[in-house]
C-alpha cells in the first residue's frame, strides 16, 4: 500500500502544470478566476492548444490519437487543469460518443468522427433526456422511422448542455415502438444542421443559458449514422455511462474551489478578524476540506481498482453523491463567507462584457449565481436519489 504518487507521476504533474501555466491565455484564466464559465471561444481555443500537444483525449488509445494514459495520469491531468483554471474539455465528444464510436462504430464512422472530435471541428452534445423521462431513460419517446436510406426522427430532447454551440448530437431514439422499455432503442448520430433540428434555450434559475431543448421535426438522418445494430442502443448507452463517470467526483475542481473559499474567507472580516479564524466558520471549512481528502482517496481507490478490472464499478455512484455534496457545500460556504454581499446578482451573460463587477467586493461577484447553478450537480447525470438506488442495488444487493 502506497498513497504517494510515484516520482514519474510527480514529474508528469509538473509537466501538465507547466503546460497550463505557459499556454493558457491570461484572459481565459481571468474569466475563470472571476467565477465565469468559459466562453465558446475559450473552449475552442484551448481545445486547439491541447490538440497541438496531443492532449485532447489522452484517455484514448494511441491508435485513435490518444495517449494511453493510466487512470492516475488522467486524474492528475484533470486536477492540474482545474488547478490552473483551464477549461476542462467537454466530455460529450471525448468521453461519451468517442469511446462508443471506437468500440461499436464502423471503420468509416471512426475515420469520419474521431479525428474531428480531436481537431475540435465537431462539437458534440448529448440527446438522452426527454421531458417525460429524466432519470427513467427507458421511457423515452423520440421516434426514428426507417424510410429507405434514412431514419426520419421526430421528438424532443431536453437538458442538452451547450447544444447552442454543437455541430453534432448523439441520440437515443425509439426504433421499435412495440418493444418494451429498453428494447427497441437505437443510438443515432445527427448533424445539428439537418433541416428540422431546432434548439430552444432553457434559462436556469441563475439566469444562465447552459442547457437547451432540442426538437426534431421530420429530421432525415442517413442510416450510416446508426451506431451498431438497430434496437441495440441500450447496450451502447450503458457502455457510455460506465465511461462517462471517470471524473465523477470532481476532486480537482473542488480543490480549486476550496482554495478560492479559503482566500475569500481570509480576506473577509468578522469583528475585525479574518472570517477564516472565526471558530464556527473555520470548523465548517475544515470539515469540507476533510471530506474532500476522503473523497480524493476514495477516488484513487476506485481508479486503482479500475486499473485491475479495466472497468468502473458501482462505486462511482459513491463518488457522484459525495462529490456533488462537497462541491455544493463549498458553493454554500463561499456565499456565506461574503455575508450580505452575496445578494447582488448579475447574470453571467451580463458580467462577461462588463468592465466592473457592480457593487460589493469583486470576489463576491457571481457567488450567488454559482450557488444556484451548482444545485444541478445532484440532479443531472442521474440524480443522487438514483445514485443511492444504484448503490443499494449493485453494492448491497437490494
Amino acid at each position, binding site marked *: 500500500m502506497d498513497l504517494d504518487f510515484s516520482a514519474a507521476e510527480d514529474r508528469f504533474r509538473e509537466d501538465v502544470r507547466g503546460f497550463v501555466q505557459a499556454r493558457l491565455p491570461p484572459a481565459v484564466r481571468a474569466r475563470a478566476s472571476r467565477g465565469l464559465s468559459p466562453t465558446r471561444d475559450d473552449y475552442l481555443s484551448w481545445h486547439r492548444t491541447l490538440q497541438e500537444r496531443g492532449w485532447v483525449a489522452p484517455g484514448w488509445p494511441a491508435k485513435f490519437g490518444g495517449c494511453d494514459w493510466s487512470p492516475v495520469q488522467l486524474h492528475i491531468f484533470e486536477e492540474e487543469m482545474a488547478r490552473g483554471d483551464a477549461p476542462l474539455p467537454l466530455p460529450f465528444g471525448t468521453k461519451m460518443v468517442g469511446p462508443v464510436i471506437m468500440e461499436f462504430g464502423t471503420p468509416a464512422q471512426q475515420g469520419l468522427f474521431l479525428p474531428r472530435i480531436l481537431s475540435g471541428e465537431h462539437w458534440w452534445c448529448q440527446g438522452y*433526456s426527454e421531458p*417525460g*423521462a*429524466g*432519470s*427513467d431513460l427507458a*421511457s423515452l419517446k423520440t421516434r426514428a422511422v426507417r424510410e429507405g436510406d434514412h431514419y426520419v426522427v421526430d421528438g424532443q430532447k*431536453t*437538458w442538452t448542455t451547450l447544444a447552442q454551440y454543437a455541430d453534432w448530437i448523439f441520440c437515443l431514439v425509439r426504433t421499435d415502438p412495440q418493444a418494451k422499455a429498453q428494447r427497441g432503442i437505437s443510438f443515432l448520430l445527427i448533424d445539428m444542421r439537418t433541416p428540422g433540428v431546432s434548439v430552444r434555450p*432553457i*434559462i*436556469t*434559475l441563475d*439566469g444562465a443559458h447552459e*442547457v437547451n431543448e432540442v426538437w426534431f421535426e421530420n429530421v432525415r438522418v442517413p442510416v450510416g449514422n446508426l451506431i451498431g445494430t438497430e434496437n441495440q442502443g441500450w447496450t451502447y448507452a450503458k457502455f457510455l455511462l460506465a465511461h462517462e463517470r471517470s471524473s465523477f467526483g470532481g476532486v480537482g475542481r473542488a480543490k480549486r474551489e476550496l482554495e478560492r473559499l479559503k482566500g475569500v474567507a481570509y480576506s*473577509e*472580516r*468578522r*469583528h475585525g478578524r479574518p472570517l477564516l479564524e*472565526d471558530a*464556527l*466558520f473555520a470548523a465548517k471549512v475544515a470539515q469540507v476540506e476533510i471530506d474532500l481528502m476522503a473523497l480524493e482517496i476514495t477516488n484513487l481507490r476506485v481508479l486503482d481498482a479500475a486499473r485491475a478490472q479495466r472497468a468502473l464499478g458501482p462505486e462511482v455512484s459513491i463518488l457522484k453523491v459525495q462529490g456533488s455534496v462537497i462541491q455544493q457545500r463549498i458553493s*454554500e460556504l463561499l*456565499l*456565506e463567507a461574503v*455575508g*450580505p*454581499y*452575496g*445578494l*447582488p*446578482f*448579475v447574470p453571467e451573460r451580463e458580467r462577461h462584457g462588463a468592465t466592473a463587477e*457592480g*457593487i*460589493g467586493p469583486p470576489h463576491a461577484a457571481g457567488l*450567488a449565481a454559482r*450557488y*444556484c447553478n451548482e*444545485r*444541478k450537480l*445532484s*440532479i*443531472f447525470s442521474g*440524480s*443522487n*436519489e438514483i445514485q*443511492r438506488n444504484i448503490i443499494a442495488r449493485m453494492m448491497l444487493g437490494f
Partner: protein
Amino acid sequence: MDFTLSDEQRALQDSVQRYVSRQYAFESRRAIERTAAGWSPQVWQDLADLGVLGINVPQEHGGLGYGPIETLLVMNLFGSCLLLEPYAASAVVATAVLRDSASTHLQASWLPRLVRGEAVATLAHFEPTSRFDARQVRSRATLANGGYVLQGQKALVEHAAADILLVSARIAGADDAQEGVSLFVVPRDAPGLSLRSCRTLDGRSAADIALESVEVPASARVGMDGGALAVIERSLGFGTAALCAEAVGAMQALVDATVAHLKTRQQFGRPIGSFQALAHRAADMLLELEQARSMSFLAAVRSMGADDRERQRALSAAKVITNRAARFIGQQAVQLHGGMGMTDELQVGHWFKRLAAIEMTLGDTDTHLQRFAALGTFPASVRAT
C-alpha cells in the same frame, strides 16, 4: 396561550389573499420584475388602498394601529406570491423607526404619506464593513450651521429608490460604540447622496450609497442625538420577524408545489411520490416548515417585548430556525422537481432564490446562533451559586 386569529385579523388576511391571488400571479410578477424599476407603484397604491401600508401606523396618523401579528399575516401572503414591493423595508422597518422615535412634526409629515402610498421610506443603516453587526457605524455626522453634515457609506440599502432614506451616522464614539449614533431623514435626491444600484438574487433592488457632505437640517433628526441605535435595533427586530413570516409563506408554497409535483410526475410507471425516500423527504420539509411557522409566531409576539434580552433571544432563535428551514426546503424543492426545478420558468426557483436571499438578510445563521449563545442563560446550578 391562544393561536386563533381575531375576526379583524381574518378579514385583513382574506382581503390581501384575494388581492394577491388576483393581481400577483407568477406571470404578473415576472412582468413587474422585468420593468426597469423592478417594482410596481400601482401595486403599492393598491396595498395602500387595502390599508396594509398602515398596519404599523397609529390611527392618529391614518394607520390601522395594528402590529407584528397582522404584519405576520400579510408577510405570509407576500412570501407566497413573492411580492417585489418593499413592504418590510418601508411599511415595517422604516415605519417603526418613525413611529417609535421621530418628532411629532416628522411623524405628521411622513407617516400619513407612507400610509397613503404617496411616499416610500427605507432605512440606510448597514455599511460595507458592518457585515451583520448593527453596531458598526463609521459614517459621521458633524454639526454645522445649525444642522448636520453627513459623510460616509451605506451598504445594500433595500429599495434605495425610496423617497426618503433614514440614514444613521455617528456623532461620537468608536466605530462600534452603542452610544453616539444619530438618525436623519434624508430625501433620496439630497445633494451629495449618490447611489450604486444593483439587482439582487431575488429580483429586488438594493444600492450602496455614498454620502459626500450631505447637509440636513436639525429638524430632520429622528430621535435623540446619539441615541438612535436602540430604536434602530428594535426596528430591525420587527423587520426580522416580518422576514421570518415571509419565509414561512414562501416555504409553504414550496412544500405545496413539491407535494403536487410528487403526486403527478410519473417515473418508472408510478408517481414519484410513491417512492418512500422522496415521500419522507417531503415529510421532513413539512416538519421544518412547521418548526419555522412556530418560531415566526414567537418572533412576532416577542418583537414587541420590553425585555431586550428575551426579545433578542427569541428573534435570533427564530432566524436560526428560519434560515435552516429555508435552506433545506429551498434546496429540496429544487432537488425533488429534478431538472424542471433548475429552470427560470417555474416559480420554484424563484422561491428558492428569495429564501436564499432571506438567509443573507438581517443576520445569517452563525451570527444569530452566536448571539443567542452569548445571550444564553447559565445553568440554574450556576445561577444559584
